[in-house]
């Protein structure tokens, strides 16, 4: 019985997800067991220690724009 119910339930949830996807803006969900979000005690706002960075401001802005577009 449970086996039979699984497929329609999955399909219904997928349809709901697509319908919900029509509005709002995207954001990145942080996994529950992931690293703590936000600033770090010593690393400051970034929350990480940047060892090497050759990213340009243009590149950062481009990434930011791409995220907003989604």
């Amino acid at each position, binding site marked *: 019985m*449970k*086996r039979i119910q*699984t497929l329609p339930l*999955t399909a219904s*949830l*997928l349809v709901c*997800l*697509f319908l*919900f*996807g*029509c*509005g*709002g*803006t*995207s*954001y*990145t*969900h942080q*996994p*529950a*067991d*992931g*690293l*703590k979000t*936000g*600033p*770090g*005690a*010593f*690393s400051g706002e*970034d*929350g*990480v*220690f*940047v*060892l*090497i*960075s*050759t*990213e*340009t401001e*243009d*590149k950062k802005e*481009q990434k930011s724009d*791409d995220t907003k577009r*989604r």
Partner: protein
Amino acid sequence: MKALFLHSIFAVTVCLLTNVPQTQAAQTGMNDRAVLQELRQMIEKQQAQIDRQAAEIQDLKSRLVPRQGTAEEEIATDSRKAQKEEIPPAVQSADTGAKVVFYGQVNRAGLWADNGDSSNLYFVDNDNSSSRLGINATASYKKLTIGGKIEYQLESNSSNLVSSRDENPNNDLSIRHADASISADNFGKFSFGRGSSATEGISEMDLSGTHVVSQSAVYDMAGGQLFYDDAQNILTSTAVGDVFTNMDGLSRLDRFRYDTPVLAGITVSAGINEDDAYDLATRYSRDYGGVKVSAGLGWVNIDDSPTYDNQYSGSVSILHDSGFNLSLAGGLRQAKQSGRDDPSFWYTKLGYILNAFSVGSSAFSVDYFMGEDIAANDDEASSMALAYVQNFDDWGTELYLAYRFHQLDRDGTDFNDISAVMSGARVKF
């Protein structure tokens, strides 16, 4: 100049010689020739010495000029080095960039647990979000990004393993990620190596702000605690972690994983994993300007599993701007063995996030878990928790306190309930 010098010396010599009386010269004719010969040799020696000195001067001059040039070059090199330190080379191009970051957190707590017969205090690493260190590297060229991630977990006395029989389980160091990836905006992301399976986190969508101490993986807090059977007066070998599961996909393992690009907040992930396991998941995250929604649904199939074929699980979490939030999760496994009922679970959490203090938000939650047939037919495992988390944003720190209650109903037994209280801090470096 050389000829003039020779000429002058010769003239002086001749002049001196001409002052000698003629009579004496006549008498000493033979001696004069010898003197002249001697003087000539002397002059030639002096000339040779002058020539050597002139050559040496010339040589020194020739050495001095390149040395000046080298000094100038060194100054220029130093200047270039300084420029390199100040301005990265990739600044010249807007299409390339690389970044390597180091990160980590420590999450330590005190755990008190009571199995109805005895209680104990443990000093643990909170397995809800373990202590860890990692390095993450990305290099981009135009739309293409190559990544690498290495992350180690450093758990001294994991909270889901300690028990009254083993207060110091040896699981200090383990690898979470050794992962390489390649991604682009238009074709998604390919990952290979050890890392999150496509379905990891699929049952743990949680926007409550208390997931550091209370989430659908209820066994992360006190999973090693053993049930005490009151009917037989024995401490059994049945642990909390044996009878509770949130069917959270395949966790982390060696795999090849693909994630589609995000489209309207939706992404689909698929994985081919070690031990002939396959998984497929879809995730959804959207902010409706006042309401945040995160949801996920996953399917797992493990050919080599002796216990089940397919597993379906998912979760959804909704957070309103007022601070109220609701999280739901559920899952089902199809048992392989004949006569074995399909294990299942459901979980719900109601929470509230309060922004009353300037130091950071305060999160409260109450949750309930019910699992059926997870370890054996007709098992009913339930759990309830109250949790409080206080954020200190400027310190990158959370302080937390939670109480969790575990109950197991099994035919032919009389297990005591297990109560646990955990309090600690998660500090992000």
